[in-house]
């Protein structure tokens, strides 16, 4: 599903964040991306989401070679990827419902379909009763679950998460990971960057480990 071949990423300030990276993630696989702070985890996820482009090498997602994807097609490409961020990236002047509905509104879904799918996603993360609230009225864990609902509401085949449990206590972190597992069980390819080693040691998934922009095996 995701194929990296000899990928380099050099930022405009000449800092090389990723060096000669090659790895594959199968369709329907769940994996963790770990490594010290500054190892290049976020950079790697940004290459997959086309927030950044590689300087060298090949990134193929699905059947799409990302280096040949024109800029105007990026929005449509991104609709196939759900992204969860550490700081949620919610819109604070819109209700929980409207936040989760955003990807569907953008994709031009009909009114009814939006209502149905948003409620299904909110039900899945256990926040159906909070759909009329503003994000500010929710706890950190709840906000993260809204972020997850938004990431999965249009049923993308790939789900990326960048330190989704970074600000949460162990109990809440486990709940969040549990959600990701559930999505993986219905066939979604899940790739989660985290440095919460204690948590992922207890889980039976593959780990892609980065060390200063290189694969550490």
């Amino acid at each position: 599903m995701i194929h990296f071949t000899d990928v380099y990423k050099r930022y405009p300030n000449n800092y090389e964040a990723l060096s000669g990276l090659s790895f594959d993630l199968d369709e329907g696989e769940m994996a963790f991306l770990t490594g010290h702070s500054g190892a290049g985890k976020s950079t790697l996820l940004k290459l997959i989401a086309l927030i950044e482009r590689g300087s060298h090498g090949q990134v193929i997602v699905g059947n799409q070679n990302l280096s040949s994807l024109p800029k105007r097609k990026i929005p449509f490409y991104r609709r196939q990827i759900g992204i969860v961020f550490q700081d949620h990236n919610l819109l604070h002047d819109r209700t929980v419902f409207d936040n989760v509905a955003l990807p569907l509104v953008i994709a031009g879904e009909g009114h009814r379909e939006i209502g149905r799918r948003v409620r299904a996603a909110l039900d899945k993360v256990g926040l159906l009763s909070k759909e009329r609230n503003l994000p500010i009225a929710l706890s950190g864990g709840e906000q993260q679950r809204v972020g997850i609902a938004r990431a999965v509401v249009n049923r993308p085949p790939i789900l990326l998460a960048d330190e989704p449990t970074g600000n949460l206590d162990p109990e809440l972190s486990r709940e969040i990971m549990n959600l990701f597992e559930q999505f993986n069980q219905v066939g979604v390819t899940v790739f989660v960057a985290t440095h919460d080693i204690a948590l992922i040691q207890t889980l039976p998934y593959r780990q892609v480990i980065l060390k200063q922009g290189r694969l550490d095996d």
Partner: protein
Amino acid sequence: MTNYLLRHLQVMLFSLGRLWRQPVASLMTITVIGIALVLPAGLFVLSENMSSLSNRWDSASQITLFLQKELTPQQAQQLSDELKEWSTIEQLHYQSAEQSLDEFRQLSGLGEVLDSLPSNPLPAIIIVEPSDEGAEKATIGKLVTQLNDLPQVEQAQLDMEWLQRFRSINKMVQRGISILAILLSLSVVLAIGNTIRLAILSRESEIRVMKLVGATDRFIRRPFLYTGFWYGFLGGLFAWVTLVLTMGLLSGPVSELAGHYGSDFSLHWFGGFLFLILPFTGAMLGISGAWLAVGRHLHLIEPS
């Protein structure tokens, strides 16, 4: 297709709702735009009214022929008959030297002075009313020259030479209005552009998130363009209302003034015309301003 239109309508109302939620700021922007639009519109109404006023005078314009002193009344009558045949002349009115003197005596009240004069100093005159053909701007000058060249005529005088001056002034005013309208339109575009720019900057993080979940530039652009549309449209309406109120205040005194001059002139409002043109023009300017801002700033905001 209906789905597409429906979505546009939604965004349109959504943008209006956003303006509504910041009533003070929105009203200030709308007022600025309204004032910028009401100035050229008001001057346009003024100048149109001046034109129509000068056109009325046009038909009232007449030429006075001062006849040679030696001319006998019979010769004058003969001249009158000849002139009647001219296609450029509608009507003639002959007034003998004695009638001129009588009229002057009545008007001036200088009867005794006039009686003491050895002879009548006033000439006989013929007042010529040009036909529609003769009264046209291009032909009236020629007509005056022709009449001047007649041997029986001492002098032919167009009574309304100042009308020409009035017309040139009005033409100048109209050109000034055009220039002013262009400058103010530009300022409307820039004012709305700047307002939209600030709106874009204040929604920077929102735009990032929308791009992250797959929003196209077109989708992100749309509400800002509609915001520009609303500012311009409502500014145009504001201008219209202001203008109509002003005209309402002016029309009474103007008719009164016209009454003093024995005229039934009243202000022409162009209300319907401006009701169509002002909000429409405003909306066009608003969308242009929004385009300007969106084009410059939106693509700079990318997720990071």
